[in-house]
């Protein structure tokens, strides 16, 4: 039988660590959501032309935002992983309990959490590879990006990474708002619809941008 065994009671004050870590998990998550959405918009500038994309890339280089911001995002990404992983089950028994519960309940939000946890693992590996490849080959230009994607391997790589990131980020956005009580019961359903639509739109823009890079004529 399960009973709550470790909650504290009067006379045994608890530290604030859990609260600090929860703040940090939410804030790094929120920062990464904003970054990922901005990132996709910036990358999709290729749809307006390589010149626009190069201009934007130049701006971020010239202001050192890429050189400094890039590694900071990398750090944020790793910290967020470590913090959020505290909640993800890594032992088989717990994973089976979680999966069995989601299947039994047929509950969309429980499934969304599983999607978040699974995509987190993919993003940890593929996102780290992407960050490394891009940050060790600065400056970013439309031609360099296009050349990488046109190798074929990287095109397929991004076909997996793009939906994983957009799903993770979209669900994360929804979950922060419901977990921190910024929406009420009716608001939750509206938010979920909007979040799904936003994710679909971002995946669409991302796919179009990938195709544009794939077919961009190289000099």
């Amino acid at each position: 039988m399960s009973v709550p065994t470790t909650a504290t009671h009067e006379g045994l004050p608890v530290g604030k660590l859990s609260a600090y870590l929860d703040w940090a998990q939410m804030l790094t998550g929120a920062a990464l959501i904003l970054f990922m959405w901005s990132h996709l918009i910036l990358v999709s500038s290729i749809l307006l032309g390589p010149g626009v994309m190069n201009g934007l890339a130049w701006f971020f280089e010239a202001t050192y935002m890429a050189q400094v911001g890039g590694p900071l995002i990398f750090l944020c990404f790793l910290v967020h992983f470590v913090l959020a992983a505290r909640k993800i089950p890594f032992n088989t028994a717990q994973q089976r309990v979680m999966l069995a519960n989601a299947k039994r309940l047929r509950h969309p939000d429980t499934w969304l959490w599983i999607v978040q946890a699974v995509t987190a693992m993919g993003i940890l590996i593929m996102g780290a590879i992407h960050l490394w490849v891009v940050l060790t080959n600065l400056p970013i230009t439309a031609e360099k990006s296009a050349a990488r994607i046109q190798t074929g391997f990287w095109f397929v790589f991004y076909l997996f990474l793009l939906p994983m990131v957009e799903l993770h980020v979209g669900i994360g956005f929804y979950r922060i708002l419901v977990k921190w009580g910024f929406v009420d019961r009716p608001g939750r359903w509206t938010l979920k619809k909007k979040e799904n639509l936003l994710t679909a739109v971002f995946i669409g823009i991302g796919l179009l941008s990938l195709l544009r890079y794939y077919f961009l004529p190289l000099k």
Partner: protein
Amino acid sequence: MGRTLTFNIFRYNPSDPASAPHMDKFTLDETERMTLFIALNRIREELDPTLMFDFCCRAGICGACAMVINGRPGLACHTKTKEMPDEITLMPLPVFKLVGDLSVDTGVWFRTMYQKIESWVHTDKKFDPTAQEERMDNGLAEQIYELDRCIECGCCVGACGTALMREDFLGAVALNRLARFILDPRDQRTEKDYFDVVGTDEGIFGCMGLLACEDVCPKQIPLQEQLGKLRRKMALAAVKNILPKFLKKDF
């Protein structure tokens, strides 16, 4: 009407060494306004007198008949068979100690939990039985009552992925219960006292926001809203000393 319903029911009696967990199949003809409560009683009266399940009020007030109905925790007395498919699978609530078949012991779990969160009004005021009861603002009384509608059925705990994975997680019912005392002006506990009870990963910071509690609660208690408010309140309480003055509002 006129349907024949098939019930797959979990059977196991932990106190009988010869018993092994298995599923039993029963069929019943559906009658008008049939609920699972009625169906289970008919099965016990007509087909198998050894079937164990709990019920008391048959009106969604006592919370005793909570079970897993086609995968979702719910109240047997609240579930109309006409809203169910021809085949219905019934399992006991997880997390709680199995008494036998569909009957679980929620009492011990709830009592332990209430002791952990100290689920009573903390006051040093001496009770005067001759004095008139102190007045409370009607709006506030209604807010407290909204959370007090909890019938302790255990559905929110049985549906919570976090509670299933982590035995030490308090669960929505406990967090909602504490939220009720936070609202109550008669409880003299301070914000720090409340933080000491739920400001941990076993308490509000352990909640992963899966929201199955909100979606299965048979009394439609606004659990998502309450858990969200509690998280904000406890998170702010932890950083109050480092926040600049203009941010120190209770939002």
